[in-house]
């Protein structure tokens, strides 16, 4: 089935064994074994993550950074250990640069509210791209409306690749901020964020990268990219929901005002004056998602133990197989065919609305995403109201793809 010859090449990952780590995968949906291909929406969690969260609540639940007692000390240590794991995972300079938030959306909102509001003024320009997730559009639109700044958009071609020449033309001395997605959740496109950063820095603009669809698929090194801010969500990296990360350059974070005020983000408070805490606490007001951060730390351990490069290779092989299998089906068209793309297959079937595809696949036990994927400008570009999307995670196997292909064929035939 695969090009890989099992006799001569050792498989990179033992998928059967890996699947045992994910309890959710072992169930029936509508009487059929579950095939989970909605990984771009959220990934399943390995036992080690579930156990770590449960252990926190069973054995040492307590608040962090405040108690002198044993449990609080333990909780603080684990929480801060998770921060260190993130730092290493992204190759950040320091744990001071790693801020725990609710997710990518909150990270964009923080940067918009703090860096944005202090540095972006009327007439300044903010650049995003045509393939952004709504969470990297709406906050910048809000800022533009409130400040009188102008929002500019890097267009893409019909393969779903950003037009870099157009981007260069957009850049000028008024450009203050560029925020782009590392890998598109709808098209799978992997964008040249290092090149984008280099060009943006030439005109003095700061750069934020939305890594929500990147960190779970390939190696990300924020120092190599050279960007100023990087964000991702824990739940798409095999960790829990409600926790995510903003990485930012220390000198920028120091200069930025806090966003939310409250406990933990202060050093001293009187009614006359508050002295803010240092990094990263300045941006973590209130009791954070402690179990979430600890769970995320364990998710990073899990991925690191498998090796992100191995995961990448497995997913790439599987994607190739998926593309080939799905495109053999009469009426199926792929949307998003960038030269450099990840494990997302968005498609249309002639004469069949995605919503109907989703229902038919669901009855076969197959979970895919249907709809606009929170990227309505992408829908507009391709002239479709919605798409169907199958997206791969590290535990998917060739049988998953075969099942999905069979069901898609059924859907196409049923409505033809």
């Amino acid at each position, binding site marked *: 089935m695969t090009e890989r010859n099992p006799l001569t090449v050792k498989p990179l990952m033992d998928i059967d064994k890996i699947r045992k780590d994910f309890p959710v995968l072992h169930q029936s949906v509508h009487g059929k074994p579950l095939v989970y291909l909605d990984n771009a929406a959220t990934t399943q969690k390995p036992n080690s993550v579930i156990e770590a969260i449960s252990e926190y609540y069973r054995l040492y639940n307590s608040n962090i950074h405040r108690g002198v007692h044993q449990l609080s000390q333990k909780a603080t240590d684990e929480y801060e250990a998770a921060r260190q794991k993130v730092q290493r995972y992204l190759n950040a300079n320091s744990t001071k640069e790693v801020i725990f938030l609710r997710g990518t959306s909150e990270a964009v909102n923080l940067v918009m509210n703090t860096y944005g509001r202090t540095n972006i003024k009327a007439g300044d320009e903010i650049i995003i791209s045509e393939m952004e997730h709504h969470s990297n559009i709406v906050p910048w639109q809000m800022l533009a409306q409130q400040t009188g700044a102008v929002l500019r958009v890097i267009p893409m071609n019909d393969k779903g690749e950003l037009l870099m020449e157009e981007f260069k033309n957009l850049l000028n001395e008024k450009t203050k901020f560029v925020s782009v997605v590392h890998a598109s959740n709808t098209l799978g496109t992997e964008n040249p964020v290092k090149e984008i950063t280099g060009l943006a820095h030439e005109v003095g603009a700061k750069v934020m990268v939305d890594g929500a669809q990147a960190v779970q698929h390939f190696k990300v090194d924020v120092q190599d990219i050279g960007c100023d801010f990087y964000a991702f969500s824990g739940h798409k990296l095999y960790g829990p929901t409600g926790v995510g990360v903003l990485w930012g350059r220390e000198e920028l974070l120091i200069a930025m005002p806090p966003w939310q005020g409250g406990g933990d983000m202060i050093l001293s408070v009187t009614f006359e004056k508050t002295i803010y805490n240092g990094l990263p606490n300045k941006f973590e007001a209130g009791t954070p998602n402690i179990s979430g951060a600890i769970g995320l730390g364990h998710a990073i351990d899990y991925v690191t133990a498998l090796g992100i490069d191995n995961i990448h290779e497995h997913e790439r092989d599987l994607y190739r197989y998926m593309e080939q299998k799905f495109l053999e089906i009469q009426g199926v068209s792929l949307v998003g065919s960038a030269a450099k793309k990840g494990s997302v297959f968005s498609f249309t079937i002639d004469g069949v609305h995605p919503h109907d595809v989703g229902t*038919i696949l669901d009855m076969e036990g197959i979970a895919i995403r249907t*709809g*606009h994927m929170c990227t309505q400008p992408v829908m507009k570009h391709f002239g479709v109201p919605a798409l169907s999307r199958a997206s791969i995670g590290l535990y998917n196997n060739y049988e998953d793809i075969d099942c999905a292909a069979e069901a898609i064929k059924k859907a196409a035939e*049923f*409505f033809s």
Partner: protein
Amino acid sequence: MNEELKELYQQVIIDHNKNPRNFRKIELPSHHSEGFNPLCGDHVYIYLDVANGVIRDISFEGNGCAISKSSASIMTAELKGKTLEEAEVLFQKFHELVTGKLTDEEEIEKLGKLSIFQGVRDFPVRVKCASLPWHTLHAALHDQQTAVSTE
């Protein structure tokens, strides 16, 4: 294809999806409205020509899944010639049907062609698809010209 799916996608629904009736615009409608389901991108426009309390003509445009499109198609076919009071009753009954609240077999039978949407009640996430055209109709008749949304 299993039984529940066959119940949902009856041949009549497939047929109306492929060949929708009254799929056009009415120039100078007496009432019209736009409906939108942000979850899946379904988008429907309903146009009416009402005189003396009677629906003389009704049509729709837009795009959506098989359920919403066939629902709009069958709705327009069923409502042409009906009075506004009759339309209001059918609006209520249809809603009860797709949400599984209408269980009396005789009552269901009285709905005629509309009764084929009974299968939708087993697919809670698809109820909005079937009812979007009806909500849009309701908005049009009650002079809400702004877009209605299922959310």
